[in-house]
């Protein structure tokens, strides 16, 4: 009797926690939508998405920020995916050794470093280096932000990929090895085909982190409101834009536009989750 009561109480507690978490997310979405709906309908979505940002001239478009986010997060995801997946494959390749254990520990450790620490170190180490090597500009640019952002998403990509590689059934590996395959061949012909879905979802989660991160781009990308034409140009992401403009007086247009930025980011993460769901449905 007592046991049943405890079980019921636990269930109720978990249900309440779940309901709270879910309703908070729903509430945020509702809130963002309510604030941006009048703007989207009155100012035409196209204008938001196509125009530049110049509050002095009363122009409140976010096109440069969308492009900036796309470049910075995109480049970071590419670098982070290449490094992260390679690192995971290497750890799996040398699995069981001291080196593998050390690298796995290092990646876990990296996941715990606050991004502002990366940003601050890069400001004094990477930015001057880029400035000196390319001559023009201050070194605050897409390249700097993307390189550091790649480091930030590396643990996410590596840990999930490694997890999927480890899930490959041992008897399958044994069977292929008994046919005379080398470790490298096993990695490429057994592990990769078996785990590709996991690797893709790792990269997508990494991309999600890259788009959502604020501090790195804010500190390293220079935040210029322009459509960048090279990776050495300064750019501003949607998240930095929100961080820079929250200051605005709440009656002003610029303050309202922030909610549109928030909505865009929210829609992006929703799309990410949807994509992962679809990916889960695909048969390998």
């Amino acid at each position: 009797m007592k046991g049943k009561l405890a079980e019921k109480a636990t269930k109720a507690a978990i249900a309440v926690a779940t309901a709270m978490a879910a309703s908070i997310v729903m509430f945020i979405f509702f809130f963002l939508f309510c604030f941006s709906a009048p703007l989207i309908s009155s100012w035409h979505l196209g204008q938001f998405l196509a125009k530049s940002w110049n509050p002095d001239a009363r122009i409140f478009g976010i096109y440069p920020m969308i492009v900036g986010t796309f470049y910075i997060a995109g480049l970071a995801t590419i670098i982070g995916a290449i490094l992260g997946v390679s690192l995971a494959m290497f750890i799996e390749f040398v699995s069981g050794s001291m080196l593998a254990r050390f690298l796995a520990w290092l990646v876990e450790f990296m996941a715990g470093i606050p991004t502002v620490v990366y940003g601050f170190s890069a400001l004094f180490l990477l930015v001057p280096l880029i400035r000196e090597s390319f001559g023009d500009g201050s070194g605050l640019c897409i390249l700097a932000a993307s390189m550091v952002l790649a480091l930030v998403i590396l643990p996410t990509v590596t840990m999930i990929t490694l997890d999927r590689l480890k899930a490959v059934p041992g008897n399958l590996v044994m069977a292929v090895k008994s046919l005379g395959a080398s470790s490298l061949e096993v990695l490429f012909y057994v592990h990769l085909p078996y785990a590709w879905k996991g690797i893709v979802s790792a990269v997508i989660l990494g991309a999600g982190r890259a788009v959502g991160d604020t501090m790195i781009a804010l500190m390293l990308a220079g935040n210029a409101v322009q459509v960048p034409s090279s990776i050495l140009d300064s750019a501003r992401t949607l998240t930095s834009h929100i961080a820079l403009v929250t200051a605005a007086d709440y009656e002003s247009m610029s303050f309202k536009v922030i909610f549109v930025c928030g909505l865009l980011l929210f829609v992006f993460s929703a799309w990410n989750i949807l994509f992962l769901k679809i990916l889960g449905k695909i048969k390998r």
Partner: protein
Amino acid sequence: MKIIKKIIKTATICMILVFLLRGVSLSGDLDVFKGLSGHLQIAGGTAHIKCEKAAIKRIMKAYRAIRITIGGGGSGVGIKQVCEGLIDIGNTGRAPTPDEVKRCNLKVYKFAVDGIGVIVNPERKIEGITTNQLIGIFSGSITNWKDLGGPNVSINVYTRDSESGTRKVFWKKGLKKAQIIEKAYFVRSNAAMKTAVANDPYGIGYISLGVADNSVKLLAIDGVYPSRENVKSGKYRIARGLYMNTRGEPGPLAKAFITYMLSPEGQKLVEKFGFLPVR
């Protein structure tokens, strides 16, 4: 034994003296806080922070029951948060607009005058520029240091976000409302501006004179160096008041803080941090 007694005696006298002296230094302008307690929240303009922090340190040392916190964000944040009642005092580096005053029923207290200086990295040989050159640089018609007698490297322009009071004043009085180029790098505070230009040998920016130090080089504009004397006499034009704003009449703690900042002791602090006193 005698020696020990003597030591104890001297120590006691010393301690009494210290207490007396402490008592002396405590009386005076800080007395406005007598009998007050609670939490005072200040935020907004970033030029104010260092100076007000020094005042806060003194106040909290003398009156343990008072807790004062100060944050940045820029003048826009100061107005917004004081208007919403989130903070008690909103700092601004510009006078609030008539609309803001009306909407939020603001009471405005000017406690210092601050110049805004144009800064470059100390590596640059240049000592001064003309207003036309300044406008050219910030609006994009002058883009290379060689046009100013420097090396053949492009100029990196640093600016603040549109909520900054420093930017608003600089834009109006320094740039005559010329459009700042799209390429400009954005930094979030006066302190961040200093760090950015101190780290970029080819950077140029503008900053509160109270925040500028030896890590950056201030430029004379049209031959007028942004010295305290030149700001005071009005010869250096790019200057503004520093304000504290409250929604309606300030509460007892906010009132005491404002009174203290305007007292001789507070005004001495204002001077110590590179601003001009108003009293």
